[in-house]
């Protein structure tokens, strides 16, 4: 059962306009933020399918960037996230693709994010109603369910190993 709580259905309290294209995506960005323990310096973003078609209209880019900057779903600054990336020193690129080869859902994204000494590649899917799921971290399949009621920072600490591991690899290369 993907939906567990009454607040998965009534909620989140969020900035509009779309729970799947805005709210759920903020959580995915926020997870990456927590995984890196702060705002990344660089982010390569891939939007698949429905995200690729409509991200401008829904502000999906603003939502993901807002999350990467550390904002929560009901943060009214999300609409200014693009301008705010400059202040935070985040440079980013967005690539658009068709169906996601790793997860069968139209609202999927991949983010490769770097901060000073770590790099992480995260696949996320927004399931609707503000609920989302991280399905891949650095090539490994995972199943981390994110709802806007969750403490994303605690969730992410369980997976901080993934980031470290990759840092070691990078050192070797």
């Amino acid at each position, binding site marked *: *059962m*993907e*939906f*567990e*709580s*009454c*607040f*998965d*259905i*009534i*909620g*989140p*309290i*969020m*900035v*509009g*306009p*779309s*729970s*799947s*294209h*805005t*709210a759920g995506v903020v959580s995915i960005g926020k997870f990456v933020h927590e995984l890196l323990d702060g705002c990344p310096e660089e982010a390569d973003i891939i939007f698949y*399918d*429905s995200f690729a*078609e*409509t*991200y*401008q*209209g*829904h*502000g999906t880019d603003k939502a993901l960037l807002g999350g990467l900057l550390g904002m929560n779903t*009901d943060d*009214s600054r*999300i*609409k200014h996230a693009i301008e705010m990336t400059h202040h935070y020193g985040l440079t980013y690129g967005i690539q658009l693709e068709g169906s996601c080869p790793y997860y069968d*859902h*139209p*609202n999927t994204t991949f983010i490769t994010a770097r901060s000073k000494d770590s790099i992480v590649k995260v696949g996320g899917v927004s*399931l*609707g*109603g*503000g609920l989302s799921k991280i399905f891949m971290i650095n090539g490994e399949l995972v199943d981390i369910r994110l709802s806007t009621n969750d403490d994303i920072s605690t969730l992410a600490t369980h997976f901080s190993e993934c980031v470290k591991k990759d840092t070691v690899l990078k050192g070797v290369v």
Partner: protein
Amino acid sequence: MMEIRSMRELIEITKLEKKSIGQIMLMKEEKKSGKDQETIIRMMEERLIKMKEAIDSGKNDPSPAPSGISGGDAVKMSQYVRRGKSLSGTYISDAMTFSLATSESNARMGVIVATPTAGAAGILPGVLFSLHENDGTPYEELVMGLFTASALGYVIANRSFISGAAGGCQAEVGSATAMAAGTIVELKGGTPEQAVNATAIAMKSLLGLVCDPVAGLVEVPCIKRNVIGTSIAFSAADLALAGIESRIPCDEVINAMYEVGKDMPRVLKETSLGGLAMTETGKKVKERLFSKKS
């Protein structure tokens, strides 16, 4: 407590426990989250208050959304309703006004409560605050109504879809309308069976509805679909309260919604590549907005 996988199971539990659908959901949340009832009720109350704030800010705001393709209709509607000549009666007219106000706020990137999604955020607040306005249903009962709605939505979401991208607008406005219909029934003293019948009837009326937002924005046709959703919710509730049943059981209706959603082509699932999004006007709007941006 047993897991609730279907409306049939939900009804069984209400009988077993001698409780309403809303109370069952509250109990279930208590068990699952480990929080006490008081905390859970307070959290739900917070959502009700946010809904009210969205209505209040939207009702008097004539300004257009950033896109320029929506805004100002809530003000028009409430002026019209105040003249006392609306054909649909005050329950539905007020619900339509409140629903417009909420969905217009959403389009302005204002704070709203997703019920179950942001695209369909206008329907439930619309009917709840219309009940409050027209027969003085107190806030505590409206909060319980949100538990009822969440139980109905919970079953739908776990059996089918609730997002337009996954299942078309039938999954989004359809689910929200179905939840609202059942909620009205429970708040007006109907039985759990009647509430579930209202849910089924409302969902059947919107089965097959495609998701085709113009320029990918949750505005056209979304806002007006929310508005009409409130009137379908009231009609379905009236039918169920009259003792009329859905000939197809609710669980089967939900399964049908799932099958229809799966078969729906990708162009009609929030990609803005079909339906109203691809009309002459729809395409012009998209061109205008995106050329402005780049």
